[in-house]
Each structure stands twice: as structure tokens, then as C-alpha cells.
């Protein structure tokens, strides 16, 4: 078996976290090897669905049912999955995993360079101490080893580079960031906002804070409002590894990238207390190779990073690397999703909107805030994402009966205004919500398949009831008619905010990572993707992974130079 030792650091994964790790490490002068299991995707050149005209999309944009059912059974449920984006996603048939049928887990994965940074929802919200202190205050999970003040400067650092548009609100529980000018709300959204803020004193509605530039900056363009970001954006208006972190890392001359390189596991050197090698399988040839480096950053995504650690067994770590606590694989969290309400806002048919805004509105958490009376039914809280727009011909053609000249004429104008609010709810950490390696089944590389055992609990279900009720109430109050609440009975994975399984903590006996994302027991190993999370908040998590990654790199490199690693 070959070994190579000529890298200062190895980064596993090229998505949101891996891209940041590579950028920061290379900019600090380290020679970095980035390993990505998927195929290469070039910025611009490989965005084959970008700006595709409706008439060029196969089958009018309808799903290829047989193919999706057989090969993309999980990924095809993603809102951003269709023929213009399919090449970015995982083939589920080739990459199987297992779960108990009664407790399905939707593992939604990219399978290309850039990972899910190409197709993510781009919503970015800072955490606050309401989140970092939540476990300590209500006793679910263990306390975070960090507080908002530890991460705040790193939020600022990454936000400036990411290019975040949004509105400052001055809310302590949803801290403001480094914002470019916010995208606009439309006429009806402003009307709903006014109603909510007049009738519900502690509630706010704002435009989504998103990783889409409204100003040309950072060698990237501003949004041109074509709409479907997930097809790729060759002007780089939204943040992806391809548009942002990878070019920065490549510019240093310190980055080596290997795609179609699957990490099987890590080798451990007990004498040094360090990772001594990263075992890689060439996805095309099956050839195996081990790479060595001074630092290893696992950024393969929540589930994949923990899969690698669980599959890294040695005399020292019989249950997986850095797993003396037994916490590895446990406390798997997501957000509840798909609960809310919609309704028709009658009138104002002379008002319309121009442009396809790839963003919606946001109603920050308003439940169980400090100083409020606390809900008797559930702990923690949720936020809404939503919007209002005129119904289009696709929707209206199903409502308008008949055919012929009058039918055609009726579709010339858009339908009525429709408004929608959907909640994302916090998921309490629970040791029985977990992933593990299956005892029997392996994948095409011989790596044990992931087995999930995770379900939402009583708190999430009780919260979802309030999510629906309050959405209905706010829409009705704003004047909506035909208001209809909906509950999708989402299961973990649906929100694509999966996190936990290698949590941070102060106590090595109950956590995997310390307050610097460094493994308690393996000093050159850092895990900075969603697996590090100790609780889940209710806001979209990606910007927090970015800030934690940049912070961890800063610490790791200082420790390396000081001779402590």
C-alpha cells in the first residue's frame, strides 16, 4: 500500500464546510489535499441546466418517474431536484443505506465536487445565546462549550465573504449580521407583514436573509433574479464552493483536489494520539491508497463524517475513532418541516410582481423567548418561511374548467394572491435518535452501510400543532380566505438540516469534540460540519458550520505552529 505524506492538511468533503476549511487552511500557507467522493463540477461550464428555457426542458419539466423511483427514490423528493439539477445529486440505487420502515430517514446528499453547496436553500441566520444556552437551561442534551460571543466575530468574517443580503432587526434572539441590501418584499407580503406586526406585538416578518448577493462583490455578480439557483449560477451571485471558497483556495497554489475519492476510514497512531492516515478508495478503479497529513478536517456532511469515524476502528477505539464517550452516532437531529398554512388573499388583482426572487419571507421565532410566558405544551421554538405571490397558469389551469377561447383568455392574467407560511421547528437532542453502521450490509466499496434509527418525539409533534395553528391565525388575521393548515408528518432528514452525531462538549466522557471542533481524544482531528452540533436551534444551520469551520482552522493552525499538535 502506498503512502504519501506531503500534505499539511487533508480536508474530507468539498461542500459548504469543506470548502471553507480548504480556503482557510490554504490561505494560512498549508499544503492541502481535498478529497471528494463525487465527480468534478466546473463553475459555470458544468451548470447544464442554468438558464435553460422552458421549451428546452425535457417532458415539460415533468419528473422521469421510472428513473426517479428506481435510482433517485430519496433525492427526487427534494424541492430542487429535477432534470436541470439531477446531475448534482446522489444516485440512491448506487449508494444504499438502511432504516426501520417505521422510522424512515431521508438522507439527501450531493454527489459532486461542491456537494450540497450547489443546491442548498441559501438561507442564513445566526444563532444566539438563546440557542447556545438551551440545553443547559432545559436539561435536554449537554451544554454547548461555546457561547455567542465566541462565534460572533467568525459569523462576521464568513458573512462578508459569503455575501449575505438581509435586513437588520435588532432582535437579541436572531442577531444581525454583515448584510448587503435586502431583497424586496412584494406588495402583498408588506401588507401581511403590517398585519402581523400590528396584531402580534412580539412577532416580526422580514425578507429572508440569504447567501445571495444583491451587490456585485467578492469577484462575484449580483443576483439577476432568473430564479432557480440550484441549477448553478455562473456569475456566482449565490455562495457555493465553486463560486466562492474553491477559487480562493486554488488561488493560493496550495490546494490539491481529488474527486471520485471515497474515504473509507482513518488510521490511528496510539503513540502520538493522532490520525496517521486517511484511507481512500478510487471510486472508478477501486484502488486503495492512504494519505498522511499533520491535520485532518472531516467535512463530509453530518452523516458521512460520522460514518467515516464509526468505520475507523482500532485497538484504541473499538467503537469508532474519537468515540470513548459512546456519543458518536447519537443525538442525530434535523428540523421539523412541512407544517404550516396557506390561504388566498382576495383582491389587489391590479398588483403584480416582476422577477423570480429566489428567496421568501421569514418570521423569526416568537415562542418561549426570555421574559415571555413559556408554552405549556413544548420547549424551544420555530420560525416560519413563507411568501405571497400571484398564482400562475400551472395552478390556475387546474382550477379553470372548460377549454377554448375563453379558457385561453382566462389564463392571460395571473390568478389571485396566495400566501403561505411553513414552520421549521427545533428538534431536541435525544440519545436514541441515532445512526450506526449496519452489521451486515456493505456498499459497492465494501464500506458498511449507514443504518438510521431516528424519529421526531413528543416535543416536536406538540410544537408542530402550534406551528399550524399560528400560521392559520396570522394568515386569517391578515385577511386571507380559504385558509388551510397542513401537516406533512415530516420525518428526520426531510428538512435537509441533519446535524449532531459527533457533538461538541466540555466533558470528554459525553461528547466527541471540544469547543474548537477538535476531537477530545485525537488532537489532529477536527470535525466541522453539521455532525459537531450539540443542539439544533430552529434556524437554518449552514452559516454556523461555516463560522465554526473558519474558527476551528484558525485554532488548529495556531496549535500546529505552537507545536501542540
Amino acid at each position, binding site marked *: 500500500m502506498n503512502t504519501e505524506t506531503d500534505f499539511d492538511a487533508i480536508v474530507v468533503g468539498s461542500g459548504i464546510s469543506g470548502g471553507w476549511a480548504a480556503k482557510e487552511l490554504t490561505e494560512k500557507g498549508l499544503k492541502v489535499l481535498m478529497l471528494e467522493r463525487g465527480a468534478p463540477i466546473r463553475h459555470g461550464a458544468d451548470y447544464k441546466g442554468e438558464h435553460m428555457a422552458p*421549451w428546452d426542458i425535457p417532458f*415539460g419539466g415533468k419528473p422521469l*418517474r421510472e428513473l426517479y423511483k428506481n435510482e433517485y427514490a430519496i433525492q427526487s423528493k427534494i424541492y430542487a431536484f429535477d432534470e436541470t439539477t439531477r446531475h448534482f445529486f446522489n444516485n440512491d440505487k448506487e449508494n444504499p443505506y438502511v432504516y426501520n420502515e417505521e422510522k424512515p430517514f431521508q438522507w439527501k446528499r450531493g454527489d459532486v465536487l461542491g456537494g450540497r453547496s450547489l443546491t442548498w436553500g441559501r438561507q442564513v441566520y445566526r444563532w444566539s445565546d438563546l440557542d447556545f444556552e438551551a440545553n443547559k437551561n432545559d436539561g435536554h442534551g449537554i451544554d454547548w462549550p461555546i457561547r455567542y460571543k465566541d462565534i460572533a466575530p467568525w459569523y462576521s468574517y464568513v458573512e462578508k465573504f459569503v455575501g449575505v443580503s438581509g435586513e437588520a432587526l435588532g432582535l437579541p434572539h436572531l442577531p444581525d449580521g454583515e448584510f448587503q441590501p435586502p*431583497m424586496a418584499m412584494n406588495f402583498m407580503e408588506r401588507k401581511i407583514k403590517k398585519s402581523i406586526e400590528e396584531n402580534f406585538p412580539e412577532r416580526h416578518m422580514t425578507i429572508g436573509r440569504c447567501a445571495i448577493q444583491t451587490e456585485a462583490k467578492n469577484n462575484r455578480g449580483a443576483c*439577476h433574479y432568473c430564479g432557480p439557483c440550484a441549477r448553478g449560477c455562473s456569475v456566482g451571485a449565490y455562495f457555493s464552493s465553486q463560486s466562492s471558497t474553491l477559487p480562493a483556495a486554488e488561488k493560493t497554489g496550495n490546494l490539491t483536489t481529488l474527486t471520485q475519492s471515497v474515504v473509507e476510514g482513518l488510521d490511528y497512531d496510539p503513540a502520538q494520539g493522532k490520525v496517521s492516515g486517511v484511507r481512500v478508495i478510487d471510486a472508478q478503479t477501486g484502488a486503495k491508497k492512504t494519505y498522511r497529513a499533520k491535520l485532518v478536517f472531516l467535512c463530509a456532511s453530518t452523516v458521512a463524517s460520522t460514518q467515516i469515524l464509526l468505520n475507523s476502528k482500532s485497538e484504541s477505539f473499538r467503537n469508532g475513532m474519537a468515540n470513548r464517550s459512546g456519543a458518536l452516532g447519537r443525538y442525530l437531529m434535523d428540523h421539523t418541516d412541512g407544517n404550516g398554512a396557506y390561504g388566498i388573499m382576495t383582491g389587489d388583482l391590479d398588483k*403584480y410582481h416582476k*422577477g423570480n426572487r429566489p428567496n421568501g419571507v421569514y418570521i423569526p421565532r416568537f415562542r418561549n423567548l426570555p421574559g415571555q410566558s413559556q408554552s405549556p405544551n413544548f420547549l424551544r421554538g420555530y420560525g416560519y418561511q413563507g*411568501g405571497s405571490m400571484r398564482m400562475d*397558469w400551472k395552478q390556475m389551469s387546474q382550477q379553470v374548467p372548460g377549454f377554448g377561447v375563453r*379558457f385561453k383568455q382566462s389564463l392571460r392574467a395571473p390568478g389571485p394572491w396566495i400566501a403561505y407560511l411553513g414552520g421549521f421547528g427545533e428538534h431536541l437532542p435525544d440519545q436514541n435518535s441515532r445512526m450506526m453502521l449496519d452489521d451486515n450490509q456493505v456498499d459497492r466499496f465494501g464500506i458498511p452501510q449507514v443504518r438510521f434509527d431516528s424519529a421526531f418525539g413528543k416535543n416536536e409533534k406538540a410544537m408542530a400543532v402550534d406551528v399550524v395553528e399560528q400560521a392559520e391565525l396570522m394568515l386569517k388575521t391578515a385577511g386571507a380566505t380559504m385558509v388551510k393548515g397542513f401537516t406533512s408528518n415530516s420525518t428526520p432528514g426531510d428538512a435537509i438540516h441533519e446535524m449532531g452525531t459527533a457533538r461538541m462538549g466540555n466533558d470528554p466522557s459525553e461528547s466527541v469534540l471540544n469547543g474548537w471542533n477538535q476531537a477530545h481524544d485525537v488532537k489532529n482531528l477536527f470535525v466541522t460540519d453539521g455532525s459537531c452540533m450539540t443542539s439544533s436551534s430552529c434556524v437554518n444551520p449552514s452559516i454556523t458550520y461555516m463560522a465554526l469551520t473558519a474558527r476551528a482552522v484558525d485554532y488548529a493552525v495556531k496549535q500546529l505552529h505552537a507545536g501542540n499538535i
Partner: protein
Amino acid sequence: MDRRTLLKNTAMVLGGLASASVARAVLAGVDSGVAVKTPIFTALQREKCSVLTEIIIPRTDTPGAIDAGVPHFVEVMVSDWYTDRERQIFFAGLEALDQYCTDNFEKRFLECSAEQRINALEQAEKDIKDYKPETDGMAGEGEGSLLPGPEDEGKPFFSKIKELTVLGYYTSEVGATEELRYDPMPMEYTDIEFSEIGRQWSS
């Protein structure tokens, strides 16, 4: 959030930096780009479909379904995208039109007058009243219920031909740019008065 931004249907839909050109003079029967992979239509079925799409979206002061190449789109969808069950319902529906016309007008559908053909299609539309959808076509699993859900394979012939005609027409270059309005590079998101453009956006 555009994620669940809801209404994948409404908001995003298909952007595009088309070679937004003059209306391509796409004639019925002319291959509008994508060939039928597994041709199964008889000449008669093709002709019937063509007539039906034009009844559903006729030429007015703007092009109609035939001008937009919709008959070819319908043939592609039925031949290459439909399931066997959907095809069976579709072809049975075409047959039923002939049966209805024979019973009522003593002529086959294509031999009927324009009024009689419309009457036959109106009759077909009545079939959908008692139909109970197998899915509501909306509730996407794990998403907001406004997102498109599983296809309703069992829906009657009328729903099928209408859906395909509408989809083919409004996603065609002619339908998207001449009947509706298409702006692949809006450069802004802003309020406008509907009267400023007088049509809805096609995407």
C-alpha cells in the same frame, strides 16, 4: 427558503436566458426538437390529438396549440413519458370520442363539424365530475402541501389531454413568449401594475 418556497410552481419555475427569438414557426407535425423515441401513434390518433389540442387552445390574436407545436409535445408525452396505464386511458379516451360521435352524429370524430367536435369534448369533460383523484396531485411528501405531489395516473382522458395541452403550450417558445410574457433576466424583483405587461409571466 425558496426551498420550500413554496410554490415551486409560481415563483421560480423555469428561468431561462433563451435565445429568445422571434417566434419559431413551428408547424404541426414538424419535429420541435425532441423526437418521439417509441412511436406508437397511428396517423389517425395523431390527427385526432392535433385537432383536440387546437380546440383546447385555439389560435386567436395569438398562436394556438398547433402553431406552438403542441401536438408533437402530446405525442412525445404519451409515447415516451406516460405509463402503460395512462396510455391505455388516453387511447381509450380517443376511441370514446369516436363512439360518442358515431352514436350522436353518425360520424367519426374527425368527420364531425367543429361544433360537434366541441360537443364531444364537452361530453368528455363531464366524465371528470365524478372522478375521485387517487392523489390530490399537490401534497409533496415532506414538503408544504402546495408542492407538486405524485402524478394521478388514473385521471380521465379529458384531464389528461387538457393537462398535456396546457403544459405543452405554455412551456413552448410561442406560448411562453407570445401568449404570456417571458423575461429570463429580470435583473430585479419589484412590484409592478398588472396593466404594465397585461399578461402573466410564463416563468
